[in-house]
């Protein structure tokens, strides 16, 4: 083993000094992507779960089909459809927008299923009490059911969010200049893999607090049962 070669290939600090602005750009793009996709996916997921829980057959069948579709299709395939397909269909959406669309639908189908399980965990009496005071079904959902449902499935939601953030790195394949993409680009500039190590470290710093949060939520749920 030639330690000097390993050091140069993977821990070449000088390379990072040279390209860190590009890595920061990539990091910022990843942040922006997450700030768009997490709330959008979550909100759409809440809407899907809400509609689902109303048991309107005419809405539920198409909904189940759509959710199944987005859950069975690999996110990368979906990404390629939206990034290269939407412009073909005449919607001149920038790559960022196309990526957001893909991840929103993909993640919403997962968020939706999780929240649906949460809604089903709420005793029937909650909806009845709310309706008995004159709240509409939708109002009862928004003010009474969803807040409790979301709390009950907080660990699954956090875990899903974690997966989603990690999955945004797939956008590097369609040339969106997010963190992993910029890692690959700068790797080509400095002729060593140190930027990819830096990328891993940045992901770690970004996601580790969420991982901690997740275990705390899981422990809290365990003890409250």
């Amino acid at each position, binding site marked *: 083993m030639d330690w000097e070669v390993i050091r140069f290939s993977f821990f070449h600090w000088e390379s990072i000094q040279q390209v860190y602005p590009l890595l920061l750009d990539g990091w910022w793009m990843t942040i922006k992507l997450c700030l768009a996709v997490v709330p959008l996916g979550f909100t759409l997921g809440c809407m899907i779960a809400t509609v689902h829980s109303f048991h309107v057959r005419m809405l539920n069948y198409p909904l189940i089909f759509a959710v199944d579709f987005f859950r069975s299709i690999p996110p990368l395939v979906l990404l390629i459809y939206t990034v290269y397909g939407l412009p073909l269909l005449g919607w001149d959406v920038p790559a960022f927008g196309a990526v957001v669309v893909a991840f929103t639908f993909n993640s919403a189908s997962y968020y939706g299923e999780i929240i649906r399980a949460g809604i089903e965990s709420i*005793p029937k*009496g*909650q909806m*009845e*009490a*709310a*309706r*008995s*005071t*004159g*709240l*509409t079904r939708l*109002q009862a959902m928004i*003010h*009474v059911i969803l*807040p*409790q449902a979301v*709390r009950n499935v907080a660990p699954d939601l956090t875990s899903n969010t974690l997966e989603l953030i990690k999955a945004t790195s797939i956008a590097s394949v369609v040339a969106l200049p997010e963190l992993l993409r910029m890692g690959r680009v700068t790797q080509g500039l400095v002729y060593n893999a140190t930027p990819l190590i830096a990328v891993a470290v940045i992901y770690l710093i970004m996601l580790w607090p969420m991982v901690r949060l997740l275990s705390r939520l899981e422990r809290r749920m365990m003890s409250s049962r």
Partner: protein
Amino acid sequence: MSDTDTGRATGRRDPVVEALDIHKSFGDLEVLKGVSLTVDPQELVFIIGPSGSGKSTMLRCCNLLEQPTSGIVRITGEEITAKGVDINLVRQRIGMVFQSFNLYPHMSAIGNVTLALRRVQKMDAAAAEAKAHEALSKVGLDHKAQSYPSELSGGQQQRVAIARAIAMEPEVVLFDEPTSALDPELVGSVLEVMRDLRESGMTMVVVSHEMRFAEQAADRVIFMDGGVIVEEGTPQQVFRDTQHERTRSFLARVTDH
């Protein structure tokens, strides 16, 4: 709106609740086989009967939490089973109190009371809070306004649930076994609130096994069995001068312990 107005104009003598020949089936199971119930203003009507006799279902038909298979329900003269009635508007006028309280666990006591005031009656925050404090005072729990349901005893939770119902100023409150889930030593406080409510002139329909309370407070007692009303009258008539064998054996069973 005009429907309601005419209903109220002629309404002084209109019954608050008028349910006519209510049938209700769940699939093949006919739970209500033609039950009629009339409740006059300021009346306290007590419904008793064995488990599964359809008491809860009857009560829930009165605010359409359960849709009757057939029959008509009128609230202060307005037919709420008619097509095109905004049931959410009607339900503001019918309070309901449940056996398991059904307080919203993620909201404080006052949050529980203000929710419908804000979202249904569209009051502003200050007005809703004032109203809620007033309702909580009536059940003796204004000092617990900021407490969450998990921080309250069962009796206190049920009193908050009563406050939630009466804050809307309903014309009638339906109680479905309000004390059945309570430890015996907590029952008294809830019954006391119900007694106060009756004194203040609230119209009430109560499903309960608290026979002593029925004797003291009810204007009328209805005994249901097998989806029909078997016997009906003043507490004196039903408890002392019982006419039907089914009523007698039921009363013997529940007053045993």
